[in-house]
């Protein structure tokens, strides 16, 4: 049992630089391996539709005839399942989260 157990800790941190960063002046540094926004590489895609079939939230839409790949950013949960199964490695997860999606519109590529 003790008194003022917190004082030492509080005093130490009163004299130390805050552990928080000065966001937004100091942007957050993404950690390597962080699951951020899904990035699509059009050149290598063969529009096989595997990603669209396997996406657990139904965020992806692929049209083989028109050679179109689309994503609903509000539905994507950045789980990385599509990245794992893509046979041509056309998909990748960026470490950054990108700008927030504000509409339900699909992003076409």
């Amino acid at each position, binding site marked *: *049992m*003790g*008194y*003022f*157990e*917190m004082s030492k*800790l*509080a005093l130490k*941190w009163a004299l130390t630089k805050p*552990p928080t960063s000065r966001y937004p002046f100091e942007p957050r540094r993404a*950690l*390597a*391996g*962080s*699951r951020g926004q899904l990035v699509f590489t059009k050149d290598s895609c063969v529009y096989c539709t595997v990603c669209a079939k*396997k996406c*657990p*939230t139904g965020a992806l839409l692929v049209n083989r005839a028109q050679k179109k790949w689309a994503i609903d950013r509000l539905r994507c*949960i*950045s*789980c*990385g*399942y599509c990245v*794992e199964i893509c046979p041509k490695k056309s998909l990748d*997860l960026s470490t950054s989260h990108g700008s927030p999606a504000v509409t339900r519109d699909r992003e076409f590529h």
Partner: protein
Amino acid sequence: MPRTIIPFGPQHPVLPEPIHLDLVVEDEKVVEARPSIGFVHRGLEKLAEKKDYVEFVYVAERICGICSFIHGQTYCQAIETLMNVQVPPRALYLRTAWGELSRIHSHLLWLGLMADGMGFESLFMHSWRVREKVLNIIEATTGGRVIFGSCKIGGVRRDMNAETIRNLLQELDAIEKDMRQITRVFLDDNSVKSRLSGIGVLPKQEAHDLGCVGPMLRASGVAQDMRTLGYAAFKDIGVEPVTRAEGDCYARCAVRCEELFQSVGIIRQALEKIPDGDIAVKVTGNPAGETIARTEQPRGEVVYHLKANGTKNLQRFRVRTPTFANLPAMLKVLPGCDLADVPMIVLTIDPCISCAER
């Protein structure tokens, strides 16, 4: 003495999630607590009929935002039992390490909320400062801060190389040092002890009879921990349940404080003993049959009941979460306490309502 009903929740400063209690009080003594839950029911069990059994791992992980990894792990364990999948040992060790990291961040979150609940703001900030370091480890190794997304049927999605493991163990040393400073305040400071001791006492027999789980049960002196069943790598890593005899709010706080260091020890053992090899096996076919899986979440034992009929969708998916098991005990200890102690008692069961309602 006339009786008054004081509504507590669903919105209350100590409640991160919505639960409503009608507190019947005489003067300032609670004589009865009538609960109502159901504010955040999302119908996740029913969703098993729409999502196939592989996709459902993502849903299981989202049952709870704090014990997300262990929910995913328990679901995978149940499916692996149904399909007779032999998970590679390396994957089991990685699951154990991530499960314990999730326990550390959950307990630190709870300690912060507890400090906030009793008005100890600086302690709250420091608990969450340390938690942030744990979240950084989790993000660096799995890619997510609270939704790990690294468990899949047949193994895990990500591996840790030798350098990552070395860095993680070094970081863990620093975290342990920080946790010692914080837990010293929780365990030894007079103000914390006076606020929590002797409040919400749950005797050993009652805790057992009411079916309590996790730290709530262990704080009443019952040495029950599902990790002793030997799932994942716990068959090679021994776990001695942390217990306290008092059964009050202080004992529940002390059990969680000690479990932080127990988890650090388990992670160290798991990562030092981790065998080489594959991290996943390919799983084909559909599950059939009925099984249960039990694991120890930060809040206590979780039970998954799965029924499958050979199709890609499960026939029935049922979860008994630790908060649901601890609610009857909370209602048992509330009568007789002071109105001012209600937030402390409610917090010490570590209520996770989104878990309980799914």
